[in-house]
C-alpha cells in the first residue's frame, strides 16, 4: 500500500519534471531538424532530428558565434569585477565602523528595489555625453557595483570571527593583506553563488546592450537573437539553433554548479 502510493507520488513528480523540461527538449530537437520538417502540417509532436546544418547556417549568415563569444567575454569580465568589488565593500561594511555606515548600507539595499526604468534614461543620456556609445565601457563600468553582491558578502563576512582578524593585525598584517589572504579564501561559497547569479544576469541582459551597442560585430547574444528573429523570421530551424546556442551553455554551467547554486540562493534569502 505504502509502496504503491510512493510510486504514484514519484510518477506525478516525474510528469511535472517532464513538463518543466519539455520546452528545452523540443527546442533542441527542432534545432536539429530541417525547416520543412518543423512547419510540416499534421506532423508528429516532435520533428525528426537529422542535421547540424542550422547551426552552420546561423554561424555563416549571422555570425552568432561571434555574439556568443562577446557575451561570454562581457559576462565573465563583469562577474569577476563585481565579485571583487562586492567582497571589498562587503568586508568594509561588515568589519569596519565609520560615520554614516547605516545610511550608506541602506542606500546599497535600496538599489535592489529601484526599478530599471528610473535610472536607464538618465544613464543612456550620460553614456551619450561620455561618448561611450558602442563601446564595452558602457556595458561594464556602470555595473561594476552590485547592491545584491555587497549585501551577500556583508552577510557572509559578518560571520567571520573578529578575533581572527585581530590576531592577523597584531602580527602586522595590513587590511589589504587580510582581505586577500583571509577574507577572500573564507568566502568561497559566497563567491560561487554570486558568480553564477551575476553571470546569468549579464548573460541575459537585453535592454542595456540593445541601447548601447550598435555594431553587429560587438553585439551580445540576447540582442542578437532578436535581430536574427527580425531578419530571418521564417527560418525556424535557424531560430531554434540560435536560441539553443544562448540557452544550452547556461544549462550546462548550471548542471555542473547546481548544488552550490541552490544552497547559495536559499542562504541569500536572509531568512
Amino acid at each position: 500500500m505504502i509502496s504503491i502510493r510512493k510510486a504514484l507520488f514519484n510518477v506525478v513528480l516525474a510528469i511535472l519534471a517532464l513538463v518543466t523540461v519539455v520546452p528545452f527538449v523540443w527546442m533542441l530537437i527542432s534545432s536539429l531538424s530541417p525547416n520543412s520538417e518543423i512547419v510540416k502540417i499534421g506532423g508528429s509532436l516532435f520533428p525528426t532530428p537529422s542535421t547540424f546544418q542550422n547551426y552552420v547556417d546561423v554561424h555563416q549568415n549571422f555570425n552568432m558565434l561571434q555574439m556568443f563569444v562577446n557575451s561570454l567575454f562581457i559576462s565573465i569580465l563583469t562577474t569577476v569585477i563585481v565579485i571583487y568589488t562586492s567582497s571589498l565593500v562587503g568586508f568594509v561594511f561588515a568589519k569596519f565602523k565609520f560615520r554614516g555606515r547605516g545610511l550608506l548600507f541602506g542606500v546599497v539595499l535600496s538599489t535592489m528595489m529601484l526599478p530599471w526604468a528610473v535610472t536607464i534614461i538618465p544613464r543612456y543620456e550620460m553614456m551619450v555625453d561620455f561618448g561611450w556609445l558602442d563601446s564595452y565601457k558602457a556595458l561594464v563600468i556602470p555595473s561594476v557595483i552590485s547592491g545584491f553582491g555587497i549585501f551577500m558578502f556583508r552577510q557572509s563576512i559578518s560571520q567571520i570571527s573578529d578575533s581572527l582578524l585581530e590576531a592577523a593585525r597584531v602580527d602586522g598584517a595590513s587590511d589589504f593583506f587580510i582581505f586577500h589572504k583571509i577574507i577572500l579564501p573564507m568566502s568561497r561559497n559566497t563567491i560561487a553563488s554570486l558568480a553564477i547569479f551575476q553571470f546569468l544576469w549579464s548573460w541575459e541582459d537585453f535592454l542595456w546592450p540593445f541601447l548601447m551597442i550598435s555594431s553587429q560585430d560587438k553585439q551580445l547574444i540576447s540582442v542578437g537573437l532578436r535581430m536574427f528573429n527580425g531578419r530571418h523570421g521564417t527560418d525556424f530551424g535557424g531560430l531554434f539553433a540560435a536560441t539553443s546556442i544562448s540557452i544550452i551553455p547556461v544549462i550546462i554551467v548550471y548542471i555542473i554548479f547546481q548544488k552550490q547554486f541552490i544552497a547559495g540562493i536559499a542562504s541569500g534569502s536572509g531568512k
Partner: protein
Amino acid sequence: MQKIFNFKNVIILLLVIHFSIFLIYPIYKAFAGSLHDWNPLIGQYDFVGFENFKHVLTNNLFWSAIRNTFIFVFFSVLFRIGVGLGLAVMLHSKLAKFKGFFRAIFYMPTVTPLVAVSFVWVWLYDPQFGLINKFFGLDINWLRDSSWALPAIIMMTVWKDFGYAMVMFLGGLMALPEDVFEAANIDGANRWQCFWYMTWPLLKPTTLFVVITSLITYLQAYVQILIMTEGGPGTSTYVISYLIFEEAFVRYNFGLASAMAVILFVMIAVLTAALFKISGEGEMPL
C-alpha cells in the same frame, strides 16, 4: 595617527563616487526630467511643470497598461507561489525520491535567459507548428487573440519562475522545527490540519519574502512582452514597464517616460511598504 587615505576610506570613497555618478545623479535626473519636455533627438529640455504627469494620467493606454500590469502581477505572483509551494511540499515529503534531481530540474527554467526562453514560448504557442496546440489538440492563436495573450504570457512567466519560489519554500520547510510536528501527530492532527494550522503560518516570512521580491520583479517585467506580443494584440498586453520602454526608446519622449518611471517607482515603494505593514500587524500568534 591614522592616514586619511587608508584601506577603508579609499573603498568608501570609490563606492560613494560610483553611486553618485551612476545612481544618485540618474535618480535626480529622472525626477527632474519628469517635469520637462525632454527629447534627446532634437535636444529639447524645457520645463513644463506637471504637464507630463497630467498627460500620462489622462491617457487611456496608460490606464489599460496599469490594469494589465496588475492582472499580470497578481496572477504571476499567485501561481508562482502556488506551484512553488506545492512542489516544495511534495519534495519535502518522505514519499519523494531523487529529491536533488527533481529540485535541479524544477529550478532549471529559472536560470535560463529570458529573451531566449520567450522566443521558445512564441513557437510553443504557434498555432501552426506549436507544441501546445498539437499536444492538447487545441486551435487557439494564443498570442494573437486578445483574450488569450496575457494569460499565455502569465503561463510562460510562471513556468520560468516557479523554481525560485520552490527553492525558497524548501529552505523554509527545512528550517521548521520537527518536534512541533511530531507532537501534532501524536495529538491526532491529520496532514491537512498540520499544513493549514502549522506549516503555512510558519512559512509566512518566506511567503512574504517571495511575494515582495516577485512583486518588485513583475512590476518591472517587459522582456517577455517585448519578445512575445509587443503589447498587442490591440493594447491587451501593454504593461507599464513596456510602455515606458516604448515611450523612451521608440518615441524618445524621455519626459513622459520619466514621469511614468516615477509613478512606477512610487507604486513599488508603496506596495512594498504596505505588504510589510499588513504582515507585521496580522502576525498570527503561535
